[in-house]
């Protein structure tokens, strides 16, 4: 069945993009606060009692800060006052907060770009698995997946562009290792310069994207050619390139997650980080497939998709949510238990400054899907799957938020105009590209060798 993007949906996508772009533009324009502005802001905050950190360390910082405040005036008149150290501390703190505020719109934009890129990359891997496993249940959903993966090429290029721009036209707002000034004073980063350098980062990123986009291009081409073929040659070709792609994918996905996410904390590393990001992207990918399938089915465009297909997608949402939690916990528990200073600092920052998003995310990504999708009947109810799906997507946005923000903005985080504006912008772009791609081919693959099995699929 042919799909035509409705005017209302196209308009929604465009409005989202425009509103989002306004929000992003506003947040970039207002983020350039000066040293004095930050100073007065901090002074006001400490007078009014601050909403952010209730931790004792924060209070001591505030106290020393106030002392510094008091001595600051004397400092102006008397250059040789005894409170030199306090003043240095104060300048450092204000500078730190100022940089965090400059970093916020960059990070918010980057997180939203990565989040939507991650959805389509997860779907691409899921799509390749369907072919490599010669799955019989899913061919009716393959065109939906192809629509979602259309976003991968532009989406991934945007992520790489933002990352690279932050180190060239920006002021090293996301990756501190891009700053030669920082590297000059940092022995640990100096040891990693062979991998963590700007041009290596760019070239690796382009190689990853080229590989993913090539697979997506050829698999889509063969999938459409298969509709008109009278043998299974195209299907067999896709089977072969899918197997090869999956090998390529698991290496490049892992390296991508070190480059694009883990390196925001260049001192810290985790050996299962690639798997962790992978689990998150699979959950988001399958959830998005389910949501878009339900949308199209609601319009009567996928009449052959039955509730057993939905049941299987919901099973994957449930399973990958548990898998994600397993990896999250494996990463957390070992670091928490061994308590090695250079490792555990990663979680200390998150628990002290990001308590609500850090623990809230576990409720949203684990407890919520666990309880809601456990019952097999609930997995067949569209509104249940939609509700859980929206919660899972929101939870995984916060997951990416927790991976990037603590390294770039520290305790100066908030979900405000920069974050929401960026999300709206990329949501609009995603909807626009995905639904335009869905119009380009019939929504049901007609001559896929397994399509009959998929039509009669029942559990």
């Amino acid at each position, binding site marked *: 069945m042919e799909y035509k993007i409705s005017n209302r949906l196209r308009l929604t996508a465009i409005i989202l993009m425009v509103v989002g772009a306004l929000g992003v533009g506003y947040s970039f324009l207002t983020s350039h606060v000066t040293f004095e502005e930050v100073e007065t802001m901090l002074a006001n905050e400490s007078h009014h009692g601050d909403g952010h950190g209730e931790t004792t360390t924060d209070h001591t910082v505030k106290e020393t800060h106030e002392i510094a405040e008091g001595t600051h005036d004397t400092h102006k008149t008397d250059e040789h006052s005894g409170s030199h150290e306090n003043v240095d501390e104060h300048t450092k703190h204000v500078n730190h907060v100022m940089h965090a505020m400059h970093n916020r719109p960059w990070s918010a934009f980057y997180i939203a770009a990565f989040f939507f890129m991650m959805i389509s990359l997860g779907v691409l891997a899921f799509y390749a698995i369907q072919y490599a496993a010669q799955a019989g249940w899913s061919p009716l959903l393959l065109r939906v997946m192809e629509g979602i993966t259309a976003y991968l090429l532009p989406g991934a290029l945007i992520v790489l562009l933002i990352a690279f721009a932050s180190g060239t036209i920006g002021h090293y707002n996301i990756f501190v290792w891009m700053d030669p000034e920082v590297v000059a004073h940092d022995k640990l980063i100096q040891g990693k310069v062979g991998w963590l350098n700007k041009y290596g980062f760019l070239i690796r990123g382009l190689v990853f994207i080229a590989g993913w986009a090539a697979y997506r291009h050829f698999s889509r081409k063969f999938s459409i050619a298969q509709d008109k073929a009278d043998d299974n040659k195209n299907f067999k070709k896709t089977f072969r390139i899918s197997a090869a792609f999956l090998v390529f994918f698991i290496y490049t996905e892992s390296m991508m997650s070190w480059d694009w996410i883990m390196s925001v904390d260049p001192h810290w590393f985790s050996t299962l980080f690639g798997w962790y990001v992978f689990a998150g992207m699979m959950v988001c990918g399958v959830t998005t497939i389910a949501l878009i399938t339900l949308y199209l089915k609601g319009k009567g465009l996928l009449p052959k998709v039955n509730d057993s297909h939905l049941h299987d997608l919901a099973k994957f949402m449930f399973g990958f949510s548990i898998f994600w939690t397993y990896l999250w*916990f494996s990463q957390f*528990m070992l670091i*928490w*238990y*061994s*308590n090695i200073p250079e490792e555990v600092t990663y979680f200390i920052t998150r628990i002290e400054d990001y308590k609500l998003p850090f623990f809230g995310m576990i409720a949203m990504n684990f407890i919520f899907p666990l309880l809601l999708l*456990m*019952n*097999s009947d609930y997995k067949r109810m569209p509104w249940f799957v939609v509700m859980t799906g929206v919660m899972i997507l929101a939870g995984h946005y916060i997951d990416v938020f927790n991976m990037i923000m603590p390294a770039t903005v520290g305790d100066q985080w908030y979900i405000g105009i920069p974050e929401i504006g960026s999300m709206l912008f990329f949501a609009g772009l995603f909807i626009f590209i995905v639904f335009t791609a869905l119009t380009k081919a019939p929504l049901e693959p007609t001559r896929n060798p397994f399509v009959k099995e998929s039509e009669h699929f029942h559990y």
Partner: protein
Amino acid sequence: METSKVIHAIYNDDDVLMAAVKSVKAEKHHIEEIYTPFPVHGLDKAMGLAPTRIAIASFLYGCVGLTVATIMMNFIMIEDWPQNIGGKPSFSYLENMPAFVPIMFELTVFFAAHLMVITFYLRSRMWPFKKAENPDPRTTDDHFLMEIPVHGNEKELHDLLSQTGAVEINIIDNAH
């Protein structure tokens, strides 16, 4: 057994059996039991059996396991003999929770799995030293057996079953 007389229809193909079950149900006959050498997909629905409640039982067993693990670890590691392991304070269950999660998980799975299997055996009236109820040993190899109680409608049932492709139809008198 409620009735003294039952009819045994034997089939040698699961698809034929499924079709036979549907036509027997369409004629509104009660099927007492079906013996198969392997699980036949969709047979329970065709026979009109109530859906299984073992999933609910399993969930409850899992909750029991989680509770047992929590109470047990709290008693052993916090109340009875607190130990300092790896510099972790051991006087609060909540603060030490990450260390106990693997045990909580394992006992949840252990209780759910084992009690579910035991429940399944008991519910199926299977226990050690139980004499097999299987009326025909061929159903453990390659034959399917459908058992229908007879209420004076022997002839009618016989005709219906032979139409459905049964390879053998026997009338059994249960004297007990």
